[in-house]
């Protein structure tokens, strides 16, 4: 798993590349949490998670997303998920993640 970032006004695009499972979860958690400090001072900040290169995700990924949502929400940062692959999309839909992190394209 590798994460690359791109800043655009009040939005930060984080592109995840690889598999999101128990083995890579801690890296994703820590990487995204380091963004919190930078984004917390931006008004109406948005974190967009580009999932187009996430080739695999299981329920561990859902736990990671829920954990990030709780942390970022406290700092008034909204989160979005961009372009997930079909299978990942199914898991995100099934677990109701889109209700708190809308899907965008």
């Amino acid at each position: 798993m590798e994460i690359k970032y791109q800043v655009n006004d009040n939005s930060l695009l984080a592109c995840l590349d690889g598999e999101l499972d128990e083995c890579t979860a801690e890296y994703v958690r820590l990487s995204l949490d380091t963004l919190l400090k930078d984004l917390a001072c931006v008004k109406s900040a948005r974190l967009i998670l580009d999932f187009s290169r996430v080739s695999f995700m299981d329920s561990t990924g859902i736990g990671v997303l829920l954990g990030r949502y709780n942390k970022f929400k406290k700092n008034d940062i909204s989160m979005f998920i961009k372009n997930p692959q079909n299978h990942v999309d199914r898991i995100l839909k099934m677990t109701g993640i889109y209700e708190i992190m809308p899907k965008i394209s």
Partner: protein
Amino acid sequence: MEEFENYFRMYIDAKLINEGFVRSMVAAFCVQLNPSVSEISDIKTAVSEAITNCIVHGYGGAKGEIEVFVGLKDGVVFIKISDSGVGIEDIDKARQPFYTTKAKEERSGMGFTLMESFMDTLKVYNRETGGVTVEMSKEIRV
């Protein structure tokens, strides 16, 4: 194992780094039934959930071994994954969506729900010798 047309069995160290290897091995073995991309993804997810349970819940990160069996018969994949860990206190509760004993560790509690959704059958039981076995199957629709 005469009941199966083909099968494999492996024992693997309960390490997180092996999770991806096991799901890829199982998926590669199932390819002979000509599954769709979606069916392969379903199997990989279910296997990943079962292996995570062994490592995180069964052994709690401690040393242990996981047994993986995959059998093929009449276009159906049978998967059996066992650990020798602490077992599950209340299996019915554990199978409920969003139920987790490790909420502080950001667990979603959706592992069994995904296994159930992506496979045709799912059976979970505590082994007499200790630990848990998960049996699941999926018909590959050609």
